[in-house]
């Protein structure tokens, strides 16, 4: 029950665990010679997870059994997908992982690490799955295989709640927009420009920020009229700050995020896809999205699609 504690830096939690263990140990010492037997019995009575309702291909199973477990990598601070509350991992992906654990016949170990280490780790084979919202892009699709999307990563905008001048997408014409320097939102500007042009408008000033916190501050102060970011982040923000911000429309082509595995690991990919599809068919994905992402996606494709809904070649 405590196996999740193999993760991360030594936390307050693991200290408490150690303390608890020392209490156990004292009792076991009091129980004298039974210690050996106890640990033996304990080892035997701790059953591996056997509630399997998911078909796993034999090859994959043997491969995993050989090592003894599957390793998934999640991010430390990527709300609402994965983040820590009081040192405990939580979030949308974490809840999905909990459910996955219950239906596979093997152990799943979780490594929590910063975003920068995840995709290279998966590509190297250090981790089996990047169990985080990985935006599906042309570049990444060369190195990785993606599951069906777990969420959209389409770019949308937010505006001040009391700003009545922006009501539709076309109202963004000539407005001052904030984006993240070099981020995905930057890539959305050409899309938006094309859309505005189509409606006879023109893109206004685009300000680039290192981080979104600054952009939101400037939006609040009136230095910006809208901030562009992926729709999930924005819906969560608006949910948190409903008194000051309002969510606008999507400004870019639709793009998606999914879990990633090393390119060619088809058996594992099939397993994960099967899991996600069954969740969706049982109607469990939508409530999870609403709970964590504060937005639900009605018609997520079952195949990973590149931005603009292009299939991966």
């Amino acid at each position, binding site marked *: *029950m405590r196996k999740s504690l193999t993760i991360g830096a030594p936390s307050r939690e693991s200290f*408490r665990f150690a303390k*608890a263990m020392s*209490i*156990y140990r004292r*009792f076991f010492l*009091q*129980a004298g010679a*039974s210690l050996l*037997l*106890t*640990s033996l*019995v*304990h080892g035997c*009575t701790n059953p591996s997870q056997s509630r399997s309702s998911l078909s796993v291909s034999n090859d994959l199973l043997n491969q995993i059994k050989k090592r003894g477990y599957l390793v998934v990598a999640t991010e430390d601070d990527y709300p609402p997908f994965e983040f820590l*509350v*009081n040192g*405990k991992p*939580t979030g949308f992906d974490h809840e999905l992982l909990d459910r996955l654990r219950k239906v596979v016949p093997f152990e799943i170990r979780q490594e929590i690490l910063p975003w920068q280490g995840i995709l290279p780790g998966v590509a190297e084979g250090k981790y089996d799955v990047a169990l985080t919202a990985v935006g599906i892009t042309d570049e990444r699709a060369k190195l990785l295989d993606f599951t069906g999307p777990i969420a959209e990563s389409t770019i949308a905008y937010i505006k001040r*709640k*009391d700003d009545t001048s922006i009501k539709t997408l076309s109202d963004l014409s000539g407005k001052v927009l904030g984006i993240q320097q070099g981020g995905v939102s930057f890539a959305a500007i050409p899309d938006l420009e094309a859309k505005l042009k189509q409606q006879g408008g023109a893109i206004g000033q685009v300000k680039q920020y290192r981080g979104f916190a600054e952009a*939101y*501050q400037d939006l*609040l*102060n009136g230095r910006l009229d809208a901030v562009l970011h992926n729709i999930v982040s924005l819906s969560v923000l608006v949910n*948190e*700050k*409903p*008194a*000051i911000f309002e969510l606008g429309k999507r400004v870019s082509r639709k793009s998606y995020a999914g879990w990633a595995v090393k390119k060619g690991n088809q058996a594992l990919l099939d397993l994960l896809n099967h899991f996600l599809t069954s969740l969706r068919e049982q109607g469990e994905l939508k409530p999870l999205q609403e709970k964590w992402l504060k937005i639900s996606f009605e018609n997520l494709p079952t195949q990973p699609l590149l931005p603009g809904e292009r299939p991966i070649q």
Partner: protein
Amino acid sequence: MQLLKKVSKSQRNFLMRLLIGGTTLIVSLGAYYSYQVVRNAMLESLKKNAFLEVQQGGDDIEHWLAALKVYVETLANTATVKSMNWAIAEPYLKTEVLRFNDVYALAIAQSDGWRNVIGGSPANISDRPYFQKALAGHTNVSDPLISRATKIPTIVIAAPIRQTFDTTSSPIGEIHTLVRLDRIAQVVNSIKYGDNSYAFAINSTGEAIAHPNPAMLLALRNSAPKMVESSDRNLAAIAQRMINRQQGIELLFLDGTWKYVAYLPLTEADWSVALVIPRENLESPLQALDLIAVAIAGLAAAMIAVLWQVQAIEQGQLKKSNELLEQRVSERTAKLSTTLDQLQQSQLRLIQSEKMSALGSLVAGVAHEINNPVNFIFGNITHAHEYTQDLLKLLQLYQKHSLNPHSEIREQAAAIDMEFLTEDLPKVFDSMRMGVDRIREIVLSLRNFSRLDQAEVKPVDIHEGINSTLLILQHRFKATAHTEVQSIKKYGDLPLVECYPGQLNQVFMNILSNALDALEDQSDAAIQITTQQSNADHVRICITDNGMGMSQEVQQRIFDPFFTTKPVGKGTGMGMSISYQIVVEKHQGLIWCDSTIGRGTTFWVEIPVKRDSETAR
């Protein structure tokens, strides 16, 4: 003595079992007690651990609430807020909302209750308890409520705004932050203790603030269901204790399973947090202990069973050896009593044969003594007959030649009836000779029977023995006037038989006298004696009477010593027994009988013609 031994043995047995049983009971009680002690201690520690978990979670919430309180108080003390001018305060508060993670809106109320809020229109909140408390000078955390501005389930942290830094002065207004209720839920839900455990929090009135089941929460209804009014009595009782601001950990039956509920009141708000842990999560470390206990109990039971078995086997063997001993004793006793019997019999036989030999020698002596005088008579009677014949012839010559005898002579001749005398005298002599012959015969028989001179094995004529026995018993054949027992002899051709003639005669005597006893007062009584050579080596004598016969029981015991059917004083019960010994032991022969009641009895005696030199005594 034996009974006493038996009792003490069974007592010892009982004591042994009592001892084993008692020891087992005491040891198992002790083991069970120590198991319970260890288990309870472990359980207590585990419970403490679980309680620590909820305490930790509670602490987190407390810190969070405290931070929020400090934050609002800090805001209340800024000049911007103290100005009570919404136009000035609003932009500042907006940036604060953006900056401070958990806050979704801020509001400032005048002392009359009218408040401005970010993202909403002005409204009067003088009815809200948090406002009243803040105006009374207390920074406070409200119960969950639905925000009037945003319609979001919210908690409010309110602080008074004072003109000066003097905390005793009366507030000029109130500032409060609005925090989404689900922020608390997030914090509360992060409290966990293994799979399927969950935490919930309730406020001072028993409404759920945070609960994994959304139906329990304010979000869906205007007023949350009160846990104290839950249909689950256990849950209601726990909720009541939580409202009473108690803390502890208890094992309860909830939602169909046993669960531990650890609960703890908070100090920063009037709330209480509880952690519901499935029993197995908490007690799983005890499973090992339980398993060991079961294993040890099993081992102990097996040991006792083995001990019991061993004892039972030992006792079985003891019993067996006892039985063997008793059997040997009884065997020896039987042997001894047989020996005693034999001894008594041989003593009796000795006496009997002594008696017989004494009688024999007496008879032989008498016979010998009579024999001589009888021989005088027998020898002289012929001469006496001749002499009287001669004298009678002389007398007849006298009568012929002296024609006129003296009258005296004639008178005398007439007186003695001379003619009759002459005629009768030879007859008298014949009769006398006959008597003497009889005497000689009897004497000879007596000598034959006793055979004092023949106490050793000799070849004898069996018929001679039978005859002399019959002669001795002759008087009984003609005992009464109106009955006479007929003796029928059917003698075969027998060779001389090597035997003890005296003893064999005694056998015949016993059988014949028994036959005569059986024929007493019976008409047409007869005894038939048949002899024959049954094969080359054996002769068989068969004595049959047509008397009253014997029953089966009597037949079976007829050769037993001291067995008799005769009235007391008439028989010793030794006759047939001695006969059996004489025939079977002395002569290596056989004796058996066959009898039918009312039809008669037959005895057979079969003895070898020649004695083996080895068995000869």
